[in-house]
């Protein structure tokens, strides 16, 4: 295996798709979500008398609970599938790069683009909320903790939705089901069933990190180290599954 060719290929794909995802048509979605989050958090901030508690709850509910899987779904589920469907994948699939590395060349920019979008949306939301109460060291700490959580979440969810895009011919439908029904509903049910969602482990890590809000007192949380290990394993499992599916896929 020519390692240099592999690294150059992955880098070329990463730069190309990061630019495409961040500055292409999907930037409109990021802007609209950012505006929505800013408006909601600005209003919540204006009504809050316990800003650290309320601000944390808003970040937990709005960013981590809702928009994190939704944004990863929007960016990820159609990335490869759209190119397979419109056949623009041909010039990538006929490049001298093993498809396993080509897949990594899709995954890295997807994770980066989702992370940048979510960090931007989180930053806008935090400023809209805490800007009204003063951004002290505790608020800044909450901000950094949620930024870390959305970055981790971006790469885990991206690995899932990218694989869904290779496996299913209508990945957006599957993605919507997963993001809203599975993560949104199953992940909120009491008892062990909620452990079957990515959100559970992401919030469990948040429970150990964040000192304010309901997330810090969450009694269903798993351990931080165990949750981090599960998230890493899930990301690797989805990534390896996606690589396998993509290598075996016939691009007819």
């Amino acid at each position, binding site marked *: 295996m020519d390692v240099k060719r592999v690294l*150059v290929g992955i*880098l070329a794909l990463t730069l190309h798709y990061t630019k495409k995802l961040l500055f292409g048509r999907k930037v409109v979605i990021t802007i609209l979500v950012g505006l929505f989050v800013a408006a909601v958090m600005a209003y919540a901030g204006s009504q809050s008398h316990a800003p650290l508690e309320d601000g944390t709850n808003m970040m937990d509910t709005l960013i981590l609970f809702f928009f994190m899987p939704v944004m990863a779904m929007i960016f990820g589920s159609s990335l490869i599938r759209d190119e397979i469907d*419109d056949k*623009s994948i041909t010039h990538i699939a006929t490049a001298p790069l093993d*498809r396993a590395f080509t897949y990594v060349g899709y995954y890295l920019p997807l994770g980066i683009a989702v992370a940048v979008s979510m960090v931007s949306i989180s930053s806008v939301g935090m400023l809209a909320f805490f800007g009204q109460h003063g951004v002290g060291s505790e608020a800044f700490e909450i901000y950094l903790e949620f930024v870390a959580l959305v970055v981790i979440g971006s790469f885990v969810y991206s690995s899932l939705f990218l694989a869904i895009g290779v496996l299913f011919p209508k990945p957006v439908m599957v993605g919507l089901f997963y993001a809203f029904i599975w993560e949104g509903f199953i992940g909120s049910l009491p008892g062990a069933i909620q452990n079957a969602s990515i959100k559970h482990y992401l919030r469990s890590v948040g429970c150990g990190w964040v000192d304010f809000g309901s997330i810090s007192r969450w009694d269903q949380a798993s351990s931080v180290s165990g949750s981090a290990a599960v998230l890493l394993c899930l990301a690797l499992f989805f990534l390896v599954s996606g690589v396998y599916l993509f290598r075996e896929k*016939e*691009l*007819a």
Partner: protein
Amino acid sequence: MTVQEGGPEPIIQARALSKWYGQVIGLNNFAVRVMPGITGIVGPNGSGKSTFFKLVLGLIKPNAGSITVLGKGPWKNPELHSSIGFCPDYESLPTDSTGREYLTLIGKLHMMHGTALADRINEVVRLVEMGKAVDRRTGGYSKGMKQRMKIAGAMLHDPKLLILDEPLSGTDPLVRKDIIDLIKRLNKEHEHDIIVSSHVLFEIERMTHDVALVYRGRTIASGDISEIRNLIDRHPHNIIIEGQGTTALAKMLLDQDYVVSVRFNESKDSVTVQVSEPNRFFDGLPALIENAQCSVTKMYSLDDNLEAVFRYLVGG
């Protein structure tokens, strides 16, 4: 396409190759030896030409039989792609990228970078005569420009083998002539081995006399085109011309002895011309278009005469 003992090695060799998609057969016991030079793959739409190319490129895997390209199996063999350039028959350009961005990505995937890549992009852009359009988004390109850009992408890394799937499809007569000249030049001056497909034998004939006829997933004949030509001349050839001012062109065409009939289609800007000698028709058409002062936007051949010949060849 027959090979002599001790002669050059075939660049592609397929034996008993079969590929099916569920109930649909793409290729059925397909066999071919492609030698260096320009080779035409001719067959009606749906005959299996594109399936064959996808197997050559390793985009799909065969259900039965074997295929070697430049001596290697193509499925899961990405290194082979360093030696192959592919121009598909479908629109594959990413519409949200400029031509230069598209070529830059391809170049980088082929380990080209820096000024060498920039120079090579300028060189191929000049060769396919795309000029300043290379910095425009490909979504705004005309059909002819898209074909040229796809050819530029296929030849950017200077591959040994160029595969051009229906490169003339949907292009106007002038672009058609330019692309045919370009293909001949790429073989003669740049020494690319080229496989070019078409459902119109006469287009291929203008580039090469070495052809393989593909019909219903099989190679039914291969070799020099002249013997097949005689068969085809017995079956008039239908060509559809679309554009502005085709009435004047139709009048002029009726005066030509190689034109059997001219018929207007449902749209007044579209005529079907039946010709007995397609070569003379294609040679004379640019002058007629100029004299008639008409603007041809699209020209394509129907498969019907080729279908008739194929039916004859397979005894149907």
